[in-house]
């Protein structure tokens, strides 16, 4: 089920209480605000607090009269008529989401103003934002993957493929090459299998044919980092420079995984692979990886983005933008695809690993529309790189010194993209 979500980003300005004021004006007469401003200058913390709309709300579980319920869109609603004000909900809510009514012996809570939250509208800094589930649900079309999966246990590519096709729809021709992600027998759209060196040029030819006959069919390539960053990079770069109308998704698992875990040019510093061994002479891959999405953006193509399965709304918005952009030129999305087999982590942790990559700025989420860069998910307090590396064995050998080096690289490339985004170019 998809839920409506109120997101609170980052620190608020200390003196601002516009959301609280808007909340008290949510009804015709002035009411007690259900969003609270938390100002703690002692530790430089300024934020707001309101109900989290938990997926399994403790308030709902304990409410003796059943006054608290969950709506279809995931909002936790308190029916004032059935509330007796016993306050047991306030006793168990770990997030301070319940507010006692002063005048009456009753409790109250945020209900997103009946799916129209006044606080997020009033927030001038875009710190509070409201995402409606229906927006995402409306964009999700038919599931175009047939049953049965060709992937290793715990691979996130199933979700990436599924979401991509659900959003792009049926009017798509897929392009691929020998890789982990061969969808010839899995996708309910035509699939064109070619060589690793010429995915971009094959898509170019077919795309030109469709233009010629006056059709907008999307030529979609989903292919790994080896074919993108190494073998097929020349063809890809040429197609980008010509502005071919293809949508190219690189799923980056940071090595040639399908052939047995050999280093590619996106393999990160220090990572073990079968061709960057760790032993008396080797310490894993040396040097910095190729920043392919940045290179692609600098070709001046219509749309470039990085995305992950761990932030599906962000991914969806990017797919929608790419779908538009590809009508006029090239769109490129670089998707991080953690590989349980090659990175050596517990197959049940793919989403966690993906999140850790983003939350440590190892894989920042950004987009460039017509050359204008923007960070789409700025991390509040980036985690140390160890939080990411400790989840997998390919980095297990790294010394403190090497971790420091990796951290410096992560900081450098994040600062780089941040600088570009800040300069609007």
């Amino acid at each position, binding site marked *: 089920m998809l839920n409506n979500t109120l997101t609170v980003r980052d620190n608020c300005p200390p003196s601002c209480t516009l959301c609280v004021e808007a909340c008290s004006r949510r009804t015709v007469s002035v009411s007690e605000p259900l969003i609270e401003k*938390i100002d703690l200058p*002692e530790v430089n913390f300024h934020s707001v607090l309101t109900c989290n709309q938990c997926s399994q709300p403790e308030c709902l579980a*304990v409410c003796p009269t059943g006054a608290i319920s969950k709506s279809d869109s995931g909002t936790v609603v308190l029916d004032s008529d059935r509330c007796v004000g016993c306050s*047991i909900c306030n006793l168990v809510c*770990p997030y*301070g989401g319940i507010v006692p009514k002063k005048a009456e012996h009753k409790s109250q809570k945020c209900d997103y103003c009946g799916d129209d939250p006044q606080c997020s509208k009033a927030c001038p800094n875009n710190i509070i934002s409201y995402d409606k589930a229906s927006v995402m649900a409306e964009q999700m079309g038919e599931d175009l993957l047939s049953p049965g999966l060709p992937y290793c246990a715990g691979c996130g590519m199933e979700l990436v493929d599924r979401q991509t096709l659900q959003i792009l729809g049926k009017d798509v021709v897929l392009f691929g090459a020998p890789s982990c992600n061969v969808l010839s027998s899995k996708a309910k759209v035509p699939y064109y299998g070619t060589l690793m060196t010429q995915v971009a040029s094959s898509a170019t030819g077919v795309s030109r044919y469709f233009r010629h006959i006056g059709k907008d069919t999307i030529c979609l390539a989903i292919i790994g980092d080896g074919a993108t960053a190494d073998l097929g990079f020349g063809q890809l770069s040429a197609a980008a420079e010509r502005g071919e109308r293809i949508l190219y998704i690189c799923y980056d698992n940071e090595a040639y995984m399908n052939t047995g875990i050999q280093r590619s040019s996106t393999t990160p510093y220090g990572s073990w692979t079968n061709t960057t061994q760790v032993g008396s002479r080797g310490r894993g891959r040396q040097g910095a990886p190729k920043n392919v999405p940045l290179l692609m953006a600098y070709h001046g193509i219509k749309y470039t983005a990085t995305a992950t399965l761990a932030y599906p709304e962000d991914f969806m918005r990017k797919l929608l933008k790419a779908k538009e952009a590809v009508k006029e030129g090239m769109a490129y999305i670089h998707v991080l695809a953690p590989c349980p087999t090659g990175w050596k982590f517990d197959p049940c942790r793919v989403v966690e690993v993906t999140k850790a990559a983003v939350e440590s700025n190892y894989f920042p989420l950004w987009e460039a529309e017509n050359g204008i860069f923007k960070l789409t998910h700025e991390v509040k307090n980036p985690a140390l790189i160890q939080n990411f590396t400790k989840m997998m064995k390919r980095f297990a050998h790294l010394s403190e010194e090497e971790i420091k080096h990796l951290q410096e690289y992560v900081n450098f490339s994040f600062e780089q993209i941040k600088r570009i985004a800040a300069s609007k170019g």
Partner: protein
Amino acid sequence: MDSCKYLIIGAGPAALAAAQAIRTCDKNADITLVTREHNLPYSPAVLPYLLSGELTEKDLFVKGRDLLADLKVKLICNKEVAAVLHETNEVKFTSGECQKYDKLLIATGAGPQIPAIENLESDQIYTFRTFDDFEKLQKTLTNKQSIAIYGAGLVAVEAAEKLCMAGHAVTIIARSSLLRKYFSPKNVAVLEQAFSKHGGRILTNNTLVSAKKVENKLELMVSNGEKLVVDRLIVATGVTANMVENDLIPRVSGGLKVGKHMETALPNIYAAGDVAAAPSFYNGQNAPCPILPEAVLQGKIAGANMAGKKIAYAGWIPGNYLRCFDESLFSIGITDAQLEMAYQVLEKQEGSSTLKLLFKDEYLVGAEGLNMKSIHPGVFLKLIKEQIPVEKNQELLLAKPRETACWLMLKHGKTQAV
């Protein structure tokens, strides 16, 4: 394959929470609740609100009715369990018949403990535990009456408040003080004043010696020598677990001993709620913790474990919140510093509001507040339960409790495991 048969004795909050957890884990489960009461499930915590009309009888049962339907749970009323026959996986009812189970949950709750009072016949007293008790009482409250309440626990005090507000003359006879187990004497004193302001009377440090029926009234002798003539006597001196017959389940502190998966010593038999003596969060000692949030949590954990999951209970933490007249009080965790000198106690008073915080090293272990402006007791509970380090911010937590507690909660951003 036959679906697994889950039998739950009792139909209170712990029983319903267990049924819900079982259904989440096992779609095909055959779940039955059996209760000796005649009505739909309800939560005893809000029964006092029936007296003031803030809660209607209809609303009392809505949640239970909806849950039974949603969860596809069978409810058997008017049946009391006489014995648990664990060797054959059956329970025996007082009517003589037996019912098989694969997994059994004992969630029978607790009933009133009636102390010995001279000359008192059981038909002259009213109790405060079940819907029946309240229905019986409610029927007699047609006009303004004088009512004595013997006992001073949470339900007694809440009921006393509702009766006062309805215009009855209420006298509370407390063996020590009001709510001694829940709140500190200073805060209780404020509550006692509120009662006198609303026409209630409180006799502290007194016992009820005898009760005699004189015409339609009761003549009560109190240990200080005073004689009271009242229309009704309500006894709410405490509760005792509603036991089921089976000597092989060890008992501790008046409850059925359970481990951290809410399992008893016998295979396939679990217990949760007021009847269960589960381990305490602080010292692991087994004892019942008869409060609603813990009953729900224990039920949920018992249900999940019965359905094959392995979820451990972190242990109970007492927590109470009372809004009585215009006062609001809460207490969480350890609030009595006398228990152990190792706690660091910080206190403050601002106008009519007070706050007391207890720490052990860098962790919060207890909090008690009176009339705090917009406070969220649950956030304190989270800080305690998840052992979120307060570090050097004890003074800050006292000075700005709401802000600091929320900051610590957000900073550590832990989510509930269960």
